[in-house]
């Protein structure tokens, strides 16, 4: 279980990394935390010719707070992000709920938030959070920097809108409206595993009534699944009204596309979808 041969580069300037990506295109792989890439290399499931280690590009380590918004540079580790979002309000509140579910402590100390986004595993927590919070992925390439909404960034299993000569340099989570409540749940057999199914959400609740909300499932389809119809069903309903919740659950069961899963099966995942919805709605009821 050793990687196929590759050339190792470790540029210290962003320009250098971009030049390497430009030169090698899809034969290059970017190494940040390495928590997914290294096993893939070791198993020879991927065999890039050039590894571009971005760990020496200092500016990519930045953590930014602005208003209630957040920005993480490409080298911000899960553990650093978790420290930055603890006891914060706004989008940080959802991330603080989600990040402890990302693998285990040792992995969180190396793995990066942007790495998780760039990998785009459909069962991972952070892509769903990014879509839920309508984050923007910052891509830098030869033609400059562009900001891609998370919902457009994730295209499929390990597939994103990043072109091969671009680097994910950061992610921006915009501020949320004051009083927004968040709910995050996932079902896994062991803590730290990829979720069988998970749900990231926010809601604005006025006098016990759902004024607006957003629901993003992960582990269901080949990319984070925005449950638009289900969210619509909840809008205008009361949090404590079982009928509203029941309608929404039924809608979620119906709305979700479930990719084939030999282990857990579609029926089981649909049932989970309803259960998770029930739980996040309960979280909205208590979370401030």
């Amino acid at each position, binding site marked *: 279980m050793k990687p196929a041969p590759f050339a190792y580069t470790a540029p210290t300037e962003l320009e250098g990394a971009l030049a390497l990506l430009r030169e090698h295109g899809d034969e290059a792989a970017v190494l940040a935390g390495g928590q997914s890439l290294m096993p893939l290399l070791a198993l020879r499931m991927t065999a890039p010719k050039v590894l571009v280690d971005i760990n020496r590009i200092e500016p990519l380590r930045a953590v930014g707070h602005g208003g209630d918004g957040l920005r993480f540079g490409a080298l911000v580790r899960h553990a650093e992000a978790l420290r930055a979002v603890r006891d914060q309000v706004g989008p940080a509140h959802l991330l603080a709920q989600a990040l402890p579910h990302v693998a285990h402590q040792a992995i969180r100390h190396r793995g990066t938030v942007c790495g998780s986004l760039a990998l785009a595993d459909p069962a991972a927590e952070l892509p769903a959070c990014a879509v839920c919070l309508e984050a923007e992925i910052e891509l830098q390439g030869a033609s400059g920097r562009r900001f891609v909404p998370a919902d457009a960034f994730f295209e499929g299993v390990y597939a994103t809108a990043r072109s091969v000569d671009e680097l994910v340099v950061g992610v921006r989570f915009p501020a949320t409206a004051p009083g927004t409540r968040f709910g995050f749940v996932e079902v896994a057999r062991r803590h730290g595993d990829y979720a069988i199914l998970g749900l990231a959400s926010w809601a604005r609740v006025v006098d016990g009534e759902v004024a607006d909300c957003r629901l993003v499932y992960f582990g269901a389809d080949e990319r984070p699944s925005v449950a638009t119809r289900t969210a619509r069903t909840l809008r205008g309903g009361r949090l404590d009204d079982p009928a509203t919740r029941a309608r929404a659950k039924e809608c979620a069961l119906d709305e979700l596309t479930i990719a084939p899963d030999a282990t857990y099966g579609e029926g*089981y995942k649909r049932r989970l979808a309803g*259960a998770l919805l029930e739980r996040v709605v309960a979280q909205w009821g208590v979370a401030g």
Partner: protein
Amino acid sequence: MPARSTELPLQEIGRSRPRGRTRALLAGHGRYLDDLDLPRQVHGAFLRSPVPAARIDRLDVTAARTAPGVVAVFTWDDLRAVCRPWRTVSAAFPGLQSPEQTPLAAGRVTAVGEPIALVVAASRALAEDAIELIDFAWTEQPAVGVASEALAPGAPLVHPELGSNLAWQFDAAAGDVDAAFAAAALVVEERFVFGRHTGVPLETRGILAAFDRSEARLTVWASHQMPHQLQLHLADLLDLPMSRVEVTAMDVGGGFGIKMHVYPDEIAICAAARLLARPVKFVADRLESLTSDVHAREHVIDAKLAVDGDGRLLAIDAKGLQGIGSHSVFPRSSTVETLMAMRTLGAPYALAAARAHADVVFQNKAMTGQYRSVGHPIACAVTEALVERAAALRGEDSLALRRRNYLEPGDDGCRTALGLELFDFSHAACLERLEAMLDVAGLRAQIAAARQRGEIQGLGFAAFVEMTASGSEIYGKAGVPVSAADTVQVAIEPDGSIKASASLSEIGQGITEGLIQVLADAVGVAPERIALEMGRTASGPHGGGAWASRGAAIGGEAAWQAGRALRGQVLEAAGALLQMPADTLDLVAGWVVDASGERRIEVAELARMVHFRGHEFPAGTAPQFQVAHHHRRAGDPTIPTNGIQAAWVSICRDTGLVRCLKHWVVHDCGRMLNPLLVTEQVRGGVVQGLGAALFEHCRYDAQANFLDGSLADYLVPMATEMPDIEVGHVETAYRGSVLGAKGAGEAGTCAASAAVLNAVNDALRAAGGTSIATLPLTPPLVLAALEGGSSG
């Protein structure tokens, strides 16, 4: 009869002490196989079969041979010059069908992961690069995946030369089973399905082999449970005398039964080392481990239990099927699993009649083999699930049903219906201890209150019998060269320290510490003055190693006898010097003391005299100060142990996830050499049992393609999911030895999965669900049972 253990002068035996190596291992100073590198060493990597069954059409290694860093590429045609094939033959399994096995594929492959070619290169990475250059073409053939299809008419044959996929059949019966069922007031029956799992030692299998042509000597380091056995088979297969083969096991990061077999890849490495006369190292990666380590279990068992109107168990009747994979593992045979799964059915109970039949079949899957608590957890789950169901249908406490039906051997011992010899038991005492630990009534009230709140909770029990410390009757009679004896050698160093070596193996279970404690008491010196070496065939005596929970029962006894004999030599020498009868002297804390307890001479002083000033002893006195004692137990083929476990679980209503809230074990392993280490062995065993119950599964698709090649897919139990495990002990000494120790290493695994299965079914029953008889208990399965329907 030997002296009863209660009369022993015990200082160290029975004391809880951490393992001596703990500090070094935790500090990262362990020396595992991969920590050893030799000059001129090269690395082996295998081309392994990507398909379950195929004929090899072309295997051209020319390009690989010229790849950068490559030293050699071997196929079976190359290795056969120095290595012979093997076949598992055992008189314990009359009629066993067993194909020939070779270190590298001979023209066809029979399982995913089977080694086909070996590349030896300057590094493992270069060897893997070269594997990609091997021109390998094959024709895939129909495969046998599902065991129940192996014997169907027209099923593909795993080994066409055998003419059938049937490897072996088990049959045993006693009493009038049909009459018992006809007369029964209640019959409970079920089809039980047990998935495959494997041992997953933290340190994977590994071997480093060096061959010295000038001496024709093969020197091997291996992560192995029984270096002496490996030495014997290497000598045999490579046609060398054992005097020219040495095997050393350094620190071993877990075994669990995985590292006690002859593996084709390990033999290939030794053959390659011999051909190259260079050290060749191979360490299995996790993918290779999961695909090619022996797997375990995989049974389907239809079983029924007859109960009379008074709640007495009458008879058990079972029909089993086990899929053992592509070969019956060498040398012990994979069929031991079914043998024990059938033989230990109903073992805790007095049954007038019993019948068991099982078919053991080949499949195009990884070999199965002896894994912790061989076969026992299967029998335990079947028996105990039926017992709990019978109690539920009778509307009585299952513990009362157990107490009424326990088979207590009494002073003369007895046999179970299926022929196990039992003695020195304590079912009732273990149950009493468990009830005290649990406060069963209080716990049941707590569970009832939780159910009132809408939670789904259950409590399950599983009584068990675990056969340990096999004697020479088991393999010896079967004609299989497996040592069931152990030898301990002791000698006194010039400063009075004890230098000891033993034929046992330390694989993390802590037996080293237990043996040191025995030697300390047997001789009369402090444990700190004893150095015990194990795992080296070059310096240690031939013997059994680590299997069947044998260390304390067999090795402990050898250590005691060796230590006592050495003590006798010291007292004889002191007596000669002091002009006192030896039997008036004693040896305490490194000093020879007289009858009044007064210190007369230090062992160190006697040792200096023996080594340097022997002339000072009276004429005719020539103290040896060294002893080797070979202990083979006479009489009892195995030492039975007993106990009971309990599991408290909750089930998540909308996900089907099972959470273990708490687990209890009461176990009787006779005298405990070191209660701390026994308790931790039990805990570790329970964790593996909980893994079997809830997480671990080697899955194949219907075409026998392997699905769980990484630890992301193969779920080992993690600390976060494990409950508190409370362990209690009852010590009923084994009367056939001085120390009275029995086996302790496997009891935790034996009944843990059964207890969880019963707890889950207890919870499901209370929640109005259907019951489950399939392990592992996956969330979809549990949710479907909860909803009384089929899983989606």
